[in-house]
């Protein structure tokens, strides 16, 4: 196919030919084309099918407001659905395919729905498909789903990368049309930091689409000069292909920069960058969007907005047809006719709804006054139009101008409501703009070039003065005001055929009237009932005409009828861009323990624990499954000695004269009298009396404590302690700092742990049971002088220590401990064996401290000191939290020892039904105990501490199973605690 509709050079580079395909057909365009302009140049008017009726559709606009011309861009994993051909920049090798048809674009089998349209009017689906009930999910809904939707995802992982960033400026100028350029020049000249962003790949806005002059230059040439000046300013950042899509609080704007979408080979650099722009002030110069007039069969390929026709003619050197007609209610439409005629296109007629003289002379065109188009002919391409007076005018394209709507979207993102302006019969920005924003140019209702240039400059200067900059005295650009009069016409009432409003979702004037009839009269009801304005274009060309028609139905004015709220984003933003780098393994950072490298080299399997990666177990040759490794690690630890990296536990240094008194406030049990050199286990309550964390705190000095928290709650505990110290007790001398990452800490557990440590801890430190008993702590040195901290605490229930060294030595310390332990057959153990041993010992962990359990439930009620206040104490006394028959943490074992308990089982007394009313508790943690040779569990059951030995049902209907379990003490191993004191 050749470029039959290419008529002039425009602003594209005709010296560079670009090959592309549409539905597999090879075509050519030029550098500077959009896919839409290139398709038009090739005479391809039919480009897609509508959502509901599968009507043939063409290109309707020349910008991001396009409702019709949606395609799949690229193929394979890069296939991008719903791409507007009107903004897709042409590149060599571009492939595009049309959407939403079964069979070919030309012969869509689903077009049959159009014949059914009388039965598919607004909201028809709310009224049927209800019988029989099962048919909805099996029959009706799948059919509706398949025919709905638009483009297709590839179902493959998005192969491109995305990035994000942050920018800061004094003045953000949104839109690089006349008002925006004028504002940016004022900003740049004043010395302020300016960002000028435009969604187009070529800045200039309508200046590139019109033939109007600025400062006696063609608009596009003036644009080049202005951009050259701006480019030379170090304080100005020009961002093309960048859509400001959302206005957020306090001057923060969301922007999407398309970096590689226009490149034949996108390469490996991020495809798009999502910017958050922090602006002190902003000038919104987003221009205006032309609106159509509704008339019968106004949706045919070849019918296009008049301003878009000018864009194609002047910027791209393309005409949508060979014989044109123009239908307008305003002066602006005349310029389309004039520009077409000037390029030698045959303009047959100008149909003006107004009964008035010609606005300008258009050679060869008939001026038909006071008339309107009421119908058209031509299913896949326009053939003729029929006027209200009955005359038929053959033409293959029709330009329609219904006036312009200021693009007020961003002014509404913080719930600002646009206001109706009688003078231009359109909504303009209301009084409540996002803080720091002013609006200029066509977006503010200044629809002529001269006014836009002037307002852009003045708006920027006012903002700059506020910020303390001195506006430049250089005169602003000058242009002449073009004729702009119009008389609103929304709909041609003589139309007998369906007149489309929302071209994508197939909403017609009749649908609006039906919505009115059924009392869906508020604007939001109308939209939701008819789906008007809910398509990918969000009603940019359809909302206002529909509102006008509803106003007519209700007999109210348009502003009384209302407006719709525009919400972010202004144009759709890929999820990939909003996610940025956060995907796959980069979703969140990893925290690695100090001995990570050692573990990796020694057979560790790792597990995600929050952001940490921890060794879960260490596989030895010959082990067939994880249980082999875990059983060995737990057994060996209990028999000789095991070593586990426990660095992930939160460590908080607490210093200050009031540190002890402060701990008394944040822990439920007392800490004030803890001697230096000793450790205490503590529990923390939320102010509502529920237990939320536990751990040990060591008193390293009179005014110095080291607290450990659970891995999961390290940040939360720190935050709450800062709150307590700053807000509740602001005059306590207490200082907190985290040292979690600073110390590599290892549990050395088992009967041989002291023997092992004696080889590592420098000799001058006596770690005998007498000198360093259970719950002792102290600063020591290891390996010949390396500072270390030693704690005699035990999670496993064995004689155990935790030794901490500066993290830089952590990896080597693991090696040293293992070497020193070789004579004792020391094993490294992971989180799984750690869990087994803590369950054997009956220690509560995350599964038990689930944010709903109290000290009373955990069997630690007596730890809540009666002698002092603490956070959570008062509310922990509430009656339901102190019930005698509350659930209590106890141990469980299967009556049939060969069975494995199931965590998450619920307990039901013997002989009772497994229903919620009989639910007495749940199994929180289970493990297979290699020491006992059977499965054990911890769980909560009503009055559990008084039911030792009772057998109950543990049911797990999710597994379709249950078993008999016996209630036992939670301390399965060494209940008297003799080992850990050895």
């Amino acid at each position, binding site marked *: 196919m050749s470029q039959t509709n290419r008529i002039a050079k425009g602003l594209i580079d005709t010296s560079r030919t670009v090959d592309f395909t549409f539905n597999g057909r090879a075509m050519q365009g030029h550098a500077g084309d959009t896919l839409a302009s290139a398709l038009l140049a090739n005479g391809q008017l039919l480009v897609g099918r509508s959502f509901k009726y599968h009507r043939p559709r063409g290109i309707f606009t020349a910008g991001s407001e396009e409702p019709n011309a949606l395609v799949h861009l690229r193929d394979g994993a890069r296939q991008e659905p*719903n791409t507007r051909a009107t903004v897709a920049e042409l590149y060599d090798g571009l492939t595009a395919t049309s959407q939403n048809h079964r069979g070919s674009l030309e012969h869509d089998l689903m077009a049959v729905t159009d014949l059914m349209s*009388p039965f598919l*009017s607004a909201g028809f*689906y*709310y009224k049927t498909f*209800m019988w029989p009930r099962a048919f909805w*999910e099996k029959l009706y*809904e799948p059919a509706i*789903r*398949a025919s*709905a*939707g638009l483009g297709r*995802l*590839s*179902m493959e*992982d*998005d192969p491109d990368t995305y990035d*994000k960033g942050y920018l800061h400026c004094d003045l953000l100028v949104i839109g690089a049309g006349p008002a925006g350029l004028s504002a940016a020049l004022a900003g740049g000249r004043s010395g302020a930091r300016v960002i000028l962003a435009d969604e187009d790949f070529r800045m200039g806005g309508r200046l590139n689409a019109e033939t109007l002059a600025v400062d006696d230059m063609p608009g596009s040439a003036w644009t080049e000069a202005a951009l050259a000046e701006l480019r030379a300013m170090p304080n100005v950042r020009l961002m093309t292909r960048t859509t400001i899509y959302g206005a957020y609080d306090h001057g*923060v704007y969301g922007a999407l920069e398309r970096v590689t979408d226009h490149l034949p080979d996108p390469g490996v650099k991020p495809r798009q960058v*999502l910017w958050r722009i922090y602006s002190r002030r902003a000038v919104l110069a987003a221009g205006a969007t032309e609106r159509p007039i509704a008339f019968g069969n106004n949706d045919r390929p070849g019918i296009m907005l008049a301003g878009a026709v000018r864009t194609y003619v002047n910027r791209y050197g393309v005409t949508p047809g060979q014989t044109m007609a123009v239908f307008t209610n305003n002066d602006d439409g005349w310029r389309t006719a004039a520009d077409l005629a000037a390029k030698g296109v045959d303009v047959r007629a100008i149909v003006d709804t107004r009964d008035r003289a010609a606005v300008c002379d258009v050679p060869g065109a008939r001026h038909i006054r006071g008339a309107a188009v009421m119908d058209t002919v031509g299913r896949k391409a326009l053939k003729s139009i029929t006027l209200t007076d009955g005359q038929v005018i053959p033409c293959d394209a029709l330009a329609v101008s219904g006036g312009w709507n200021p693009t007020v979207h961003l002014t509404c993102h913080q719930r600002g409501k646009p206001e109706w302006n009688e003078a231009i019969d359109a909504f303009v920005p209301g009084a409540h703009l996002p803080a720091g924003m002013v609006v200029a140019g066509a977006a503010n209702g200044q629809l002529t070039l001269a006014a836009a240039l002037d307002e852009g400059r003045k708006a920027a200067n006012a903002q700059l003065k506020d910020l303390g900059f001195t506006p430049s005295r250089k005169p602003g650009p000058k242009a002449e005001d073009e004729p702009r009069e119009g008389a609103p016409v929304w709909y041609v009432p003589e139309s007998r055929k369906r007149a489309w409003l929302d071209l994508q979702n197939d909403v017609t004037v009749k649908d609006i009237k*039906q919505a009115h009839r059924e*009392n869906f009269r508020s604007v*939001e009801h109308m939209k939701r*009932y008819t789906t008007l304005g*809910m398509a*990918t274009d*969000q009603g940019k060309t359809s909302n206002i005409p529909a509102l006008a028609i509803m106003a007519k139905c209700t007999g109210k004015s348009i502003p009384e009828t209302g407006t719709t709220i525009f*919400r972010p*984003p202004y144009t*759709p933003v890929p*999820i*990939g861009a*909003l*996610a940025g780098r*956060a*995907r*796959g*393994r*980069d*979703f969140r950072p*990893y925290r690695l323990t100090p001995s990570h490298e050692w573990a990796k080299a020694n057979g560790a399997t790792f*597990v*995600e624990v929050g952001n940490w990666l921890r060794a879960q177990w260490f596989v030895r040759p010959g082990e067939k499954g994880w249980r082999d490794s875990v059983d060995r690690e737990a057994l060996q630890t209990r028999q000789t000695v095991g070593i586990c990296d426990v660095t992930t536990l939160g460590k908080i240094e607490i210093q200050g004269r009031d540190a002890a008194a402060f701990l008394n406030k944040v822990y439920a049990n007392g800490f004030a009298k803890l001697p230096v050199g000793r450790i205490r286990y503590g529990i923390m309550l*939320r*102010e*509502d009396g*529920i237990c939320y964390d536990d751990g040990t705190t060591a008193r390293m000095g009179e005014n110095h404590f080291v607290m450990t928290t659970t891995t999961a709650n390290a940040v939360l505990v720190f935050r709450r302690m800062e709150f307590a110290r700053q807000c509740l007790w602001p005059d306590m001398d207490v200082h907190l700092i985290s040292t979690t990452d600073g110390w590599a800490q290892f549990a050395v557990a088992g009967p041989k742990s002291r023997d092992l440590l004696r080889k590592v801890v420098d000799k001058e430190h006596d770690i005998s049971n007498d000198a360093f008993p259970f719950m002792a702590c102290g600063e020591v040195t290891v390996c010949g002088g390396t500072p270390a901290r030693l704690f005699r605490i035990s999670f496993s229930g064995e004689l155990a220590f935790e030794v901490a060294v500066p993290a830089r030595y952590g990896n080597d310390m693991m090696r040293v401990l293992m070497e020193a332990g070789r004579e004792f057959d020391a094993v490294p153990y992971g989180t799984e064996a750690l869990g087994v041993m803590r369950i054997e010992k009956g220690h509560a962990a995350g599964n038990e401290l689930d*944010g*709903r359990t109290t000290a009373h439930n955990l069997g630690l009620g007596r730890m809540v000191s009666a002698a002092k206040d603490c956070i959570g104490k008062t509310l922990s006394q509430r009656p339901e939290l102190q019930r005698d028959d509350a659930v209590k943490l106890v141990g469980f074992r299967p009556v049939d020892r060969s069975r494995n308990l199931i*965590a*998450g*089982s*619920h307990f039901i007394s013997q002989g009772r039904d497994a229903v*919620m009313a009989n*639910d007495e508790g*749940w199994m*929180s943690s289970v493990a297979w105990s290699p020491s006992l040779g059977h499965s054990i569990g911890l769980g909560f059951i009503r009055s559990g501490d008084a039911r030792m030995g009772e057998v109950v049902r543990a*049911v797990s209907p*999710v*597994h379709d199973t249950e078993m008999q379990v016996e209630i036992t003490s939670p301390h399965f191993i060494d209940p008297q605690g003799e080992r850990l004191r050895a």
Partner: protein
Amino acid sequence: MRYSALRILKEGLTGNKGWKPAWRDPEPKREYDVVVIGGGGHGLATAYYLAREYGITNVAVLEKGWIGSGNVGRNTTIIRSNYLLPGNEPFYELSLKLWEGLEQDLNYNAMISQRSILNLVHSDAQRDAFIRRGNAMFLAGADAEYADADQLRRELPFLDFDNARFPIRGGLYQRRGGTVRHDAVAWGYARAADARGVDIIQNCEVTGFDIEDGTCRGVETTRGPIRARKVAMCVAGSSGRVAALAGMRLPIESHVLQAFVTEGLKPVLPGVITFGAGHFYVSQSDKGGLVFGGDIDGYNSYAQRGNLPVVEDVCEGGMAIMPMIGRARLLRSWGGVMDMSMDGSPFIDRTHIDGLYFNGGWCYGGFKATPASGWCYAHLLARDAPHPVAAEMRLDRFRRGHMIDEKGVGAQPNLH
């Protein structure tokens, strides 16, 4: 007017000119038996069940704006009953059962689609918690199914199984969960309530309560005073503001929750999927848009809009579990104001003022509760006693220490 395929055929052949208003726009009367404040899903359902279950038809629903303009008009349309605690689970299971027969009951197709809901599991502790929850669901008569990673890989091959920061270990399904066309719920209840004589009064804002000697005798509105034997607040999202007119402080904060929809796409998702290691859940609407959401913005707000960090956080979660959606475009985002309660669970209760009743605190889970909320509130209004499945949804539960805290985060609303 009864809706049916035949009616559509008939109207279609006569130019669709015979359709009647789905509900009337009556002038408010001076007095009603019950005035329901709030024409959202819950308020309309309450009025409907008052009329249908208890024959109380002298009822007005007062709506400040247009009906369905609150959270029933902006949510992510999910229905489910996958709760853990006895204070919640039977209530939500009743709700799911009511959803299952709702369309035939209302003669209105709300496109209730039991496409399943899946909660992904990424750690052993999470698995244990979900097994516990699944079992609790069974004990309350609901359905649950635990799927391991292999099964999920077969069913949902597009999830990121091989390169994930938090690998998928399994998931808890509720096959009866799914989605509903949300606006249609408000419209269906409104139409059915109207047909039974309930007055739905739009553009009527309550500006005060008429309280004498500790008894509420009616409301002041922008359309004049209206007397009532019982006044039922049902304005989740605005509970604080309306209750303040009666001098009440509530265990509720208002927070903004954002939700999102993409451009229309051919079918890609079978049901609802929620990410267990981030803030993201998603389903696909009948029109083809991916409807998704995540966490609340986290600060008190009545502004019905949110900010960027949460938008990004949610999309990050989406890309983390299904990197095939990278090129799907976010079309529209919106923010709804949530009644975030102190334990994350709602209230359906009498107040300390005779004749004044309260329904609110639904957090971000109110939509799925719509039928049961209406059902139980109507029961409370008609019988002056709580419905058994809502018996724990009382305002005095904090005094007793009987919180219904599904997340276990305590009295901090933005964490629920």
